[in-house]
């Protein structure tokens, strides 16, 4: 391990960068409330791993979606475990992201000079909910189908643009094969790419600026 590290460091000089990232100073009075961002990041990685594993067997077509999930649950080794983790981590990620946001809000950490972190974070919150919304349809059972009918109808209730938004979401007037496939593409291709990019920016800004210290009495 040390040899491998030395070999790489000889060529790339990664030592200063590693020290900068890993040994950076954090305020002495931060507490457990400051770990929810990292926890959310961990769940994102869990979702990327388990999601990739599920994509090996999932088939996003109305004919096969439900049956392929039955296959995952009943025939694939550890399939029900992997799907269970993906299911629960999805809910957990929404919870953690919201707690993280509340912590940032109530400690005033969104203020100068960290407004950009906040704004990127808000987009990440929306992406997280987008993951939840698109992923919910994929089991293609009654609950998934009707939840998405209702969800897209809500989007359709927007004044003026509503009908157009609804059609874009569903890929037409009705919910069907086109809807399932575009939700799948969003869920496994576009949203992950966007989230990976923005999380990188979000974390890079935290490393660059350091963690904001908790509000102190003397200020």
């Amino acid at each position: 391990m040390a040899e491998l590290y030395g070999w790489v460091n000889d060529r790339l000089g990664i030592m200063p960068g590693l020290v900068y990232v890993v040994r950076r100073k954090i305020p002495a009075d931060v507490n457990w409330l400051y770990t929810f961002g990292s926890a959310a990041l961990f769940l994102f990685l869990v979702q990327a791993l388990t999601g990739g594993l599920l994509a090996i067997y999932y088939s996003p077509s109305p004919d096969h979606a439900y049956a392929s999930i039955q296959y995952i649950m009943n025939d694939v080794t550890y399939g029900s475990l992997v799907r269970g983790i993906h299911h629960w981590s999805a809910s957990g990620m929404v919870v953690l992201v919201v707690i993280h946001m509340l912590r940032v809000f109530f400690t005033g950490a969104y203020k100068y000079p960290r407004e950009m972190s906040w704004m990127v974070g808000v987009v990440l919150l929306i992406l997280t909910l987008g993951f939840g919304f698109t992923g919910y349809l994929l089991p293609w059972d009654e609950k998934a189908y009707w939840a998405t009918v209702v969800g897209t109808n809500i989007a359709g209730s927007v004044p003026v643009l509503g009908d157009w938004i609804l059609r874009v979401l569903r890929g037409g007037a009705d919910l069907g094969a086109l809807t399932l496939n575009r939700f799948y593409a969003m869920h496994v291709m576009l949203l992950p790419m966007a989230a990976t990019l923005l999380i990188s920016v979000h974390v890079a800004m935290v490393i660059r600026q350091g963690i904001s210290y908790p509000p102190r009495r003397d200020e």
Partner: protein
Amino acid sequence: MAVANEAGDSREQGRRRFLSRAAAVLVTFIAGALAVPTIGHIISPALKRAENPLVPMGSVDQFEVGKPVRVDFLYYKRDGWVQERNSASAWVVRKSQTEFVVFNPACTHLGCPYGWSAEQNQFLCPCHGGVFGIDGTVLAGPPPRPLDRFENRIQDGKLYVRQVVQRG
């Protein structure tokens, strides 16, 4: 004062070393716990051997001893979550009241479908002139081995065939 500081520093270092080692152990443990289901999940289908189903050929009474009959049949096979419908055929030979032999309909030479000649009492392959006896043995031509057989079973007066190729 200086002494107290030194003691504090070494205590600090000891704790730091302990924590970093504990973290390394924990990370190793988590990685192992993740690797097992991950690998199992990925290689899962490779570990399963799909068996062809036992397909009913109908009542045993329709087959006469010494008169091979070619039976075409449909069977369902699972391909992951898809039910595949396949057609296949087999040559059914009744050897006695209770004994059947079922031949794979592909010639053992190059896989051509062969036929039964009632006049010559032989299986004849049209492609390269392979000739087999009613028991599947090679009588003439290029086939390297006797006709391959399928597993068969009689249950409740019905003949069942499973497409498992058994060397003849």
